[in-house]
């Protein structure tokens, strides 16, 4: 098989299997309350781990670009701005930040 086809199909298979296993068995499982609580905590910890430290690598040279973006998004969310608007505004504000960076 051609190199790229092998890479794409191989990655597709190893990515799909971990996603698929819960789909095949979840109906047969009834988790005890402790496991339920553990699963309900995962969204918070997964998001925390996805954001830190990854957000600092949004720009490979300027680590504070990502930090500014995160602070802007958090401030907008604190003020209850809708989700889609937060994403768009954060991108727009970062483009604005980039246009003033060269002056410092």
């Amino acid at each position, binding site marked *: 098989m051609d190199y790229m086809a092998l890479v794409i199909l191989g990655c597709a298979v190893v990515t799909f299997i971990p996603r698929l296993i819960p789909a095949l068995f979840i109906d047969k499982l009834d988790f005890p309350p402790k496991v339920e609580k553990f699963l309900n905590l995962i969204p918070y910890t997964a998001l925390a781990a996805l954001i830190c430290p990854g957000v600092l690598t*949004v720009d490979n040279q300027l680590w504070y670009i990502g930090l500014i973006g995160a602070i802007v998004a958090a401030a907008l969310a604190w003020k209850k701005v809708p989700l889609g608007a937060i994403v768009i505004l954060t991108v727009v504000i970062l483009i604005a930040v980039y246009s003033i960076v060269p002056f410092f």
Partner: protein
Amino acid sequence: MGIGYAAIAIKAGMTPLETISMSFLVYAGAGQIIAASMVLSGATAMAIILTNFVVNLRYFVMSTCVLNKIEDSNTPLNILAAHVTVDESFAMFSLSEDSSIWTYLGIAITAWLSWCLGAGIGVVLLDLLPVIVTNSFNISLYALFVAILTPAVKESRQIALLVLVTAVLNIVLSQFLGNWSLIVSTLVGAAIGMYIVDDEYLLSGDA
């Protein structure tokens, strides 16, 4: 946004068809970017596949959480739901109050198709976009994550503490564990959460 991924894929010498079909079939944000970077640096197919397995193992955890929360579903729909489970769809659904399978598929399939569309746009427009614009788009995913997490942090000091502990844990572990650190921090963080978060602060899946 699939544009950043497309930028690396094209640079690595992948054809437009290969670039877009990877988005459709693999559908893994960071995993695809890492795969394309490894193609660029001339890695073997086996090394790329193995790295993708490790990086994407977190979807096992996310798929379990999503499917545990989904109501009124069946196995074929669950399998479709499993394929479209990524960080964004998991984050948006698991902290929302709606637990219908159709809500989830609506969110997740939209995200999947826009990821593929983004790769298509990237392939066509790449040379036209300045780096500043593509970097600014890179923040959009993080802005989404922060926006989803902020209300919970504002609501509960216990959740805020848990988020802080997990963030610090992942910053430290990523120095030692590399690609494994995300999934280890997520699970260890949740285990710590068992002790520091009271049940009343959690949006429960099927209470």
